[in-house]
């Protein structure tokens, strides 16, 4: 053990006395606080801890563990306790201890040793414990055991690890499956040979429908088998649809992966834009335009239609711009930037600007990306110009980036505002950057060049030398564009050489004077004279420019400067810097005519005084967008390790049908047609379809699962998929054909009495002869359950019962009809029965029943009232009044009464179900009660429990029901799938999760009794 993790932070071991949780200290000998780590004390303490570990009490063991962890944290060596821990804690059944923090401590301890001391072999001692832990009934223990096991880096356990991962990948608990996904990269880095097997596991986990797993498995995919893009095809639509429910970190990973995927599979949505010349990139050069025009011409022949899957991705990621997590917002922003048609990219601007209010680190990263985007798509951020104004409290790096963005955003219309803003900055903040920014504005926008130049010249009189220097450099570049106009500025600058000391600025001034010496014929030789005097004390960069100036003057005005030049060249000849000596020698040969001088010296003047092209002041963010935005590489403007290039758009789109979700081979053989083939509007139906029937686990994979613990669930889901397969088969068929087949199926079956209505209904629908019958006829009226509102004793002879009549309440369609039956059991008449003082939860409403004026003795009367329960099971409280008495009563609806039946076809049902996935879907396994194993009983029980109507279904193993909640009209879909021997699966899809949950309970109860 050579590394002591905390040694430098804790110079003396005594300092950490207070850091152990207080409870640990009190129950134990006091030596932790005063542990001077002197031999005797520490060994005593270790003995103590060993004793505690040996004890029978879980609490003592836990204490010992916590103290060991605290010791490690404080940088003390606890390695000699390792055997004791392994012996006493690991060999004990972890499942016995039921304190998670115990497991965590143990986990941490082991990981610590595995990571720090590489005592891998010792860790092997505890392997049997983990293997037992992997079979534990508690999912957290299974997950923890897998986490530790996969962290041990000893090659001999690779097979054990592989087995454990495979088993965990088919675990019932999504949490364990998630951990399995995390373990995959660990095993891969330990033994890359396992890649093929791991890819199988990844393939299987990619098919997982749970949102918890999706992010982690994509992460594993990225680390292990990035190139196997074919694995994504089948899961693409599912991933898109699940995205919104995946946890934040997973979203980032998935979006980044899908960006690259989309770049390989879809066509560039912007190719035919240029052809119409509507909005071109401002900085496009001719060549590119031509190329684009060609492509566009091609595109015109074959008009671009966005792949529906491409659209699906854009549509499903857009809401995530509203995420609270900046990383998610950025991921979506880069996706839109790289994939969306130009017209749609604008939506990301607002979200990115919002991020500018976050922590400064977030701002830093976002501004870097905005800077790149503003170069390509300036218009996008123009409305948010003011959000990039600098505040005096901004850290310098943020200021610089904001200036960069402001400069990029400058154009003819807003330049005056921006310049005014810049002028305020000059007065108060990091001025040198401002000068650069002004210079860039000046070069980009010709109209304001003079204004900018004047501003910069004003800066020359600033007292801060850095500002002056920076201004000089910028002015030099500006002047180069039109020197003849500005000889007075050059003169002004020549004077500056006396004061200004910053080498870069001095060099710039000298270059300017040399270059334009004909504009300042009198001053230039004088400057050279001064410079020759101070030559030896100048910086190298200045010396080079002095030589340069001397050479140019010699060529133009040799009379005045011949001697000076020779003096300078002589000084340079003996300079310490070889570069300067070289330059001097070279220039001397070139300009001073000797008898041996070659052909070149004839051209000296041309060489030195050639017209130089004006420099382009460019943003450092130009062309950074070849890196994927939001990536580390983009931020650093250099390829980081493991960076994946963003692929170019393909010339022609690869076969889009690869993303179609497979149906079973046998079915395909029958001659089914996909939506895409028939040209049906895929965008409408595609996604829903895939949700219902996606992720067929490959048969071979599920067949090879040897896990005992998950066998039950495995087989369950397999049979479920079989059914799904057969359903999608029907979906694929032509509507007519399917209906015919359905009809046949329906008729083939022995028509049971209870089902007659349904069959009839179906026939009617198929023939389109009649409109669907009103739903009430569907609900079996015999099932109406009555509830007691007022008992005859408490009601002093008046008893009231009520039932939910399941009739539409005509005065208000959003109300549930409650039918009440009043019985007068007394011997006298009751008068003026009415209700008062309705107390309701907010949002609820009641339509009172009309007053019953007289209820004679022994008679019964009925009345109907309506209650809008707002789709909740809150009770409606009110008073029932007679002429003499008042009774407090309340009506509470069972959840099943909060809906009304709707009629859906099988197709509609599947489509709707596909939209209510994820959290809106609740699945329960159950064993049907002995009495309700047939379809008839199931239908009866379900419709009794909830006011739903049956949806026709091709499979006789499934019963489907549909309804809408009364108030909000949210769909409620119920599916009961039966299996052998009374096993069944109940699935409820409902947008209102609460209703869904409660409904599941009620139906479960009804079906299991």
């Amino acid at each position, binding site marked *: 053990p050579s590394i002591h993790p905390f040694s430098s932070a804790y110079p003396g071991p005594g300092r950490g006395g207070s850091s152990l949780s207080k409870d640990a200290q009190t129950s134990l000998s006091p030596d932790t606080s005063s542990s001077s780590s002197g031999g005797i004390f520490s060994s005593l303490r270790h003995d103590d801890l060993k004793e505690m570990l040996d004890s029978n009490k879980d609490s003592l063991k836990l204490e010992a563990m916590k103290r060991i962890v605290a010791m490690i944290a404080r940088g003390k060596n606890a390695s000699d306790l390792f055997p004791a821990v392994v012996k006493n804690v690991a060999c004990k059944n972890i499942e016995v201890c039921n304190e998670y923090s115990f497991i965590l401590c143990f986990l941490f301890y082991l990981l610590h040793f595995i990571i720090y001391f590489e005592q891998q072999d010792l860790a092997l001692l505890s392997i049997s414990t983990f293997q037992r832990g992997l079979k534990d009934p508690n999912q957290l223990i299974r997950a923890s055991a897998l986490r530790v096991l996969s962290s041990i880096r000893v090659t001999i356990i690779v097979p054990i690890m592989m087995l454990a991962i495979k088993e965990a990948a088919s675990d019932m608990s999504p949490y364990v499956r998630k951990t399995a996904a995390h373990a995959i990269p660990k095993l891969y880095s330990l033994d890359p040979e396992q890649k093929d097997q791991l890819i199988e596991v990844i393939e299987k986990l990619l098919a997982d429908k749970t949102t918890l797993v999706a992010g982690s498995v994509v992460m594993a995919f990225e680390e292990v088998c990035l190139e196997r893009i074919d694995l994504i095809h089948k899961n693409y639509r599912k991933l898109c649809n699940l995205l919104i429910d995946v946890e934040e970190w997973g979203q980032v990973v998935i979006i980044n992966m899908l960006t690259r995927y989309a770049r390989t599979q879809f066509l560039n949505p912007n190719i035919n834009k240029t052809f119409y010349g509507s909005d071109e990139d401002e900085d496009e050069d001719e060549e590119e335009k031509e190329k684009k025009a060609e492509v566009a011409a091609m595109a015109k022949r074959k008009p671009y239609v966005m792949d529906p899957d491409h659209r699906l991705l854009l549509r499903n990621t857009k809401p995530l711009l509203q995420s609270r997590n900046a990383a998610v917002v*950025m991921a979506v922003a880069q996706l839109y930037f790289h994939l969306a048609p130009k017209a749609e990219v604008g939506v990301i601007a607002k979200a990115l600007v919002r991020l500018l209010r976050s922590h400064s680190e977030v701002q830093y990263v976002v501004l870097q990306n905005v800077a790149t985007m503003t170069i390509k798509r300036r218009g996008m951020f123009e409305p948010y110009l003011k959000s990039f104004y600098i505040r005096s409290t901004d850290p310098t790096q943020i200021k610089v980036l904001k200036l960069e963005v402001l400069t990029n955003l400058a154009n003819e219309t807003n330049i005056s505002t921006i310049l005014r803003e810049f002028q305020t900055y000059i007065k108060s903040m990091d001025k040198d950057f401002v000068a650069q920014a002004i210079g860039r504005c000046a070069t980009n926008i010709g109209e304001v060049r003079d204004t900018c130049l004047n501003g910069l010249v004003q800066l020359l009189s600033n007292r801060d030398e850095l500002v002056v220097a920076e201004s000089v450099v910028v002015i030099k570049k500006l002047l180069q564009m039109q020197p003849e106009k500005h000889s007075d500025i050059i003169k002004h600058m020549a004077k500056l050489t006396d004061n200004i000391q910053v080498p870069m600025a001095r060099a710039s001034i000298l270059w300017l004077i040399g270059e334009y010496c004909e504009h300042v014929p009198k001053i230039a030789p004088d400057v050279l004279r001064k410079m020759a005097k101070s030559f030896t004390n100048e910086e190298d960069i200045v010396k080079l420019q002095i030589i340069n100036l001397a050479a140019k003057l010699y060529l133009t005005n040799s009379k005045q400067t011949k001697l000076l030049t020779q003096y300078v060249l002589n000084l340079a000849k003996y300079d310490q810097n070889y570069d300067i000596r070289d330059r001097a020698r070279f220039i001397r040969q070139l300009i001073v005519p000797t008898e041996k001088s070659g052909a070149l010296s004839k051209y000296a003047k041309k060489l030195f005084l050639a017209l130089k092209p004006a420099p382009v002041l460019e943003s450092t963010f130009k062309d950074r967008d070849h890196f994927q935005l939001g990536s580390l590489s983009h931020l650093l403007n250099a390829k980081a390790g493991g960076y994946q290039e963003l692929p170019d758009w393909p010339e022609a789109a690869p076969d889009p049908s690869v993303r179609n979700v497979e149906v079973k081979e046998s079915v395909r053989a029958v001659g089914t047609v996909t939506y895409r083939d028939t040209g049906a509007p895929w965008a409408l139906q595609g996604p829903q379809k895939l949700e219902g029937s996606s992720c067929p686990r490959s048969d071979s994979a599920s067949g090879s699962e040897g896990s005992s613990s998950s066998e039950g669930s495995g087989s369950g889901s397999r049979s479920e998929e079989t059914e799904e397969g057969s359903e999608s088969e029907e979906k694929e068929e032509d509507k007519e054909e399917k209906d015919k087949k359905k009809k046949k199926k329906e008729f083939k079956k022995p028509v049971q009495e209870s089902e007659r209505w349904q069959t009839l209904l179906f026939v009617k629908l198929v023939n389109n002869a009649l409109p669907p019958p009103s739903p009430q006829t569907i609900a079996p009226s015999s099932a109406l359950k009555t509830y007691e509102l007022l008992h005859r004793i408490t009601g002093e002879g008046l008893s009231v019962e009520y039932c939910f009549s399941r009739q539409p309440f005509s005065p208000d369609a959003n109300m549930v009809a409650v039918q009440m039956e009043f019985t007068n059991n007394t011997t006298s008449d009751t008068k003026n029965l009415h209700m008062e003082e309705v107390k309701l939860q907010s949002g609820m409403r009641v339509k009172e029943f009309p007053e019953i004026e007289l209820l004679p003795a022994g008679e019964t009367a009925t009345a109907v009232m309506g209650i809008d329960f707002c789709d909740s099971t809150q009770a409606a409280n009110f008073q029932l009044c007679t002429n003499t008495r008042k009774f407090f009563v309340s009506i509470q609806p069972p959840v099943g009464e909060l809906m009304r039946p709707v009629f859906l076809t099988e197709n509609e049902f599947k489509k709707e179900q596909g939209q209510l996935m994820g959290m809106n879907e609740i699945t329960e396994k159950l064993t049907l009660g002995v009495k309700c194993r047939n379809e008839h009983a199931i239908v009866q029980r379900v419709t009794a429990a909830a006011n739903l109507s049956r949806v026709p279904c091709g499979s006789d193993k499934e019963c489907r029901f549909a309804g809408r909640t009364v108030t909000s009209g949210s769909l409620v879909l119920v599916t009961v799938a039966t299996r052998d021997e009374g096993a069944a699966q109940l699935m409820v899809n409902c947008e209102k999760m609460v209703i869904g949950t409660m409904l599941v309970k009620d139906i479960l109860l009804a079906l299991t009794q």
Partner: protein
Amino acid sequence: MIHSLFLVNASGDIFLEKHWKSVVSRSVCDYFFEAQERATEPENVPPVISTPHHYLISVLRHRIYFVAVIQSEVPPLFVIEFLHRVVDTFQDYFGVCTEAAIKDNVVVVYELLEEMLDNGFPLATESNILKELIKPPTILRTMVNTITGSTNVGEQLPTGQLSVVPWRRTGVKYTNNEAYFDVVEEIDAIIDKSGSTITAEIQGVIDACVKLTGMPDLTLSFMNPRLLDDVSFHPCVRFKRWEAERILSFIPPDGNFRLLSYHVSSQNLVAIPVYVKHNITFREGSSQGRFDLTLGPKQTMGKAVESVLVSSQLPRGVLNASLNPSQGTYTFDPVTKLLTWDVGKINPQKLPSLKGTMSLQAGASKPDENPTINIQFKIQQMAISGLKVNRLDMYGEKYKPFKGIKYMTKAGKFQDLPTQ
């Protein structure tokens, strides 16, 4: 992804380190220290530093640098956001996030870090889930454990992560069911010398403290939801419902959380609740400068402006200031040249003012920069954007909760630009 984490305090000591994959020598932090030395201000340390073998991504919170070590390409925001989440979690657990608190709770810190990252990839970051797995230390529990000598052994293992609602723990029970919502708005504004607004925007949040039994399903509606066109949500909010009906519908996490944050941009007219009249002049050749500043309320809808604090960074040449406040107290730090004036509450009848002279370094020339004036204030019971909650309804549970809503407006980055 995240390889290791180092915690560095203000004096440049590493006081905690945690590794997830393998040990990275702490010498990697030398690159960070270099950058720290170069930076003039603590917040000027670049968040991303490239070293020959690793990349360091850091955040600065509570004067502690959280430095994550990265080995390969990963979105930088991913790491930054995660580090901030770690800090938030610490704060949630220990009340504060200081070096002392972290050292005192080192075991819990390790447990948390172990649970939040697995092999460098985030595992559980939702506070509700973490709290179920790892109990936060409380004074009460520590005391009970001290007296009885017991620990928390015997409690049930959490069912964690099983729930269909991943952000809410299961089995929540309260005797008093309460739901409180705080609408807090901050105004960021830059006012120029003539008193006109250069930019003004409102950054608002709705923080919630929900203590409700069971699985309540809440809906929150606004009188004027149109104001909220730029919002970000807690993952619990049903986005579709918001799109369609402009109603916040959600199953809340248990305890404190930020339901949404919103941004009212400068395109909308933003009311500015205070104004400042100031006249700060230096004369060439004179060693004296004049300082005159008056504050007043404006567009406050009759609500009092409280806790007003004015601060200004005076130019370097100022040696001292002798000022006379009409109310409150002022301090001038001759080293940092920071002038702060604690005004308190603004009385509209008698406007607070601060007048006097500043003495300048003899012989120094007139400072060419004029100080920016930063203002802080609070206004209770008002959301300056005019946002109003209409109603809060609860479904799915039968009890009647106590509901409360509070509004507050604060100054965010509220600056008055220099006089000329």
